[in-house]
């Protein structure tokens, strides 16, 4: 009797086990094929192509060793575009600081806090191309024939200043693009920070209030430590974001006036100039940078816990 029970149990477990296996295979079939075909095969190809001289059609492919990598590191243009990431990186830190400042204001007793939060967040929802076009016009310097001055130059003239060629002056153009990027993405940081600040228990604020802590002390000893992990995370993501900038400069200036970024260069090398091997090497460099940043991220966040 007992052994029969055991047998039944065994059969049941066996049935469950085999059903489990079947479920695993069926459920993972489509995702694993998609992942393999559209992520891993391209990734392996990337490694191979980066050592080859090849175009988009894969004709007349020749092995060229490390030549592509040498080109990436010795062509001044590519370096210049990596240098432009620094603008965006600095911009991201300014953005984080501003967002934190605005978030603490919005978390204090403020009338219409929800309206302000919504208004400052909304640009994040607007279509990228729309944002880029809005600012193409915003910074425009009119030629007096087909186009008039844009919004910013109108304001400057209103105050008696001379119009400025914002988007066609090297250096200044990058700063304008960074401004657009802050304008668009600050809302996301703001919402994150508000969420983190509000998740701090109100009891702590009350206790601090009873102890007579001033606003600065509340920020320094309660808010700042409470949202430290999210600040660290946003800082690291900012580095990844800064080297992956693409749409805003591509649409607003087309990468002209020294505003090109590494990703713009990579896609143009691949699809405009058809140098797939070289573009693959550039992607590999980008990938390596991301890996390094990710390792730093893991180390920093681990230490923080």
């Amino acid at each position, binding site marked *: 009797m007992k052994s029969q029970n055991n047998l039944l149990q065994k059969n049941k477990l066996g049935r469950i086990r085999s059903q489990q*296996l079947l*479920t*695993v295979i069926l*459920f*993972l079939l*489509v*995702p*694993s094929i*998609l*992942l393999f*075909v*559209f*992520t*891993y095969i*391209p*990734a392996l*190809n*990337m490694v191979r*192509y980066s050592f080859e001289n090849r175009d988009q059609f894969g004709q007349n492919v020749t092995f060229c060793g490390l030549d592509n990598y040498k080109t990436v590191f010795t062509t001044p243009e590519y370096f210049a575009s990596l240098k432009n990431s620094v603008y965006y990186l600095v911009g991201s830190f300014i953005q984080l600081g501003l967002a934190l*400042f605005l978030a603490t*204001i*919005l978390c204090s007793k*403020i009338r219409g806090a929800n309206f*302000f939060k*919504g*208004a*400052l967040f*909304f640009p994040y*929802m607007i*279509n990228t*191309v*729309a944002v880029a*076009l*809005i600012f193409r*016009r*915003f910074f425009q310097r009119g030629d007096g024939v*087909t*186009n008039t001055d844009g*919004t910013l130059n*109108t304001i400057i003239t209103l105050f008696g200043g001379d119009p400025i060629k914002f988007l066609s002056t090297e250096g200044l153009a990058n700063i304008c693009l960074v401004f657009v990027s802050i*304008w668009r993405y600050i809302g996301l940081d703001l*919402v*994150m920070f508000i969420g983190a600040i509000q998740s701090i228990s109100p009891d702590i604020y009350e206790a601090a209030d009873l102890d007579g802590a001033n606003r600065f002390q509340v920020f320094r000893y309660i808010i700042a430590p409470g949202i430290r992990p999210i600040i660290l*995370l946003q800082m690291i*993501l900012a580095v990844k974001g800064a080297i992956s900038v693409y*749409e805003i400069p591509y*649409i607003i200036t087309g990468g002209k006036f020294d505003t090109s970024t590494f*990703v713009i260069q*990579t*896609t143009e090398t*691949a*699809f405009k100039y058809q140098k*797939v091997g070289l*573009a*693959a090497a550039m*992607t590999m460099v980008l*990938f390596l940078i*991301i*890996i390094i940043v*990710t390792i730093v991220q893991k180390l920093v966040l681990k230490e923080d816990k």
Partner: protein
Amino acid sequence: MDTTYNNGKAKRTVFTFLKYAVLVIACLVVFIPLVVVFLGSFKNNTEFLSSNVFALPQKLEWNNYKTAFMDGNVLLGLKNTGIILVISCIGTIITGTMTAYVVQRFNTLFGKIMKGAFLVATLFPNIAMQVTVYRIMNSFHLVGHMAAPIILYIGTDIISIYIFIQFLNNISYSLDESAIMDGASYFTVYLKIILPLLKPAIATVLTIKMISIYNDFYTPQLYMPSEKLAVVSTALYRFIGPYGAKWEIIFAGIVICIIPTLIIFLCLQKQIYAGLVNGSVKE
């Protein structure tokens, strides 16, 4: 005693005033570029060129909207974006929840390998990866077809799978284990227990997904160059050429493409915030 009290009160008033001043300035920076677009979209070409950017339009010029909608393909773009959005969202939720269920609940080698594979894939730079993905898409004859972005949105969306896995970590096993012991199949458990429990995570994923697809420019531009397959982003981008000097029409196009976003934002504000916060914390 009295003076220190008054002093404190005065200080607080100044402080409050400064807080509002900062917020109002920040809002002006957000709104000024947008208001100009809205005003400009109602001006005709001569008025646009002659009037101040902040001047109200003398007569509402609806023709700009007509041109943007029809000739500028914005209407077509909204339709195509809608189709891609719906299919990709449904696809992501089905494959994402299934993958997460299997990977998180069953301790199988295949599941573990897949989890690792997904984790590593998050490191690949999205746009730059297309250098080689393009060739694969081309070999399946998918370039110039809506399927290309849809497949990429579904198949390479690793963040969503991670959000689902993280969420499942916090759901107790007892419910699905007892269902299995009672003879329910795994598929039933997935459909009747796991999927309903994942509702909040699904809301998070949908939020992030919708924003990112609606905003994506690179994928449709690369894989759907034909005008018939315009999505909102690419339709707007093409305005630069033919309407290069006609900002009033470009502005009308921008307003049309912002309106759906604004409506969705106003209706789902809370869910959107929650979705983004939950999504980022899971990184």
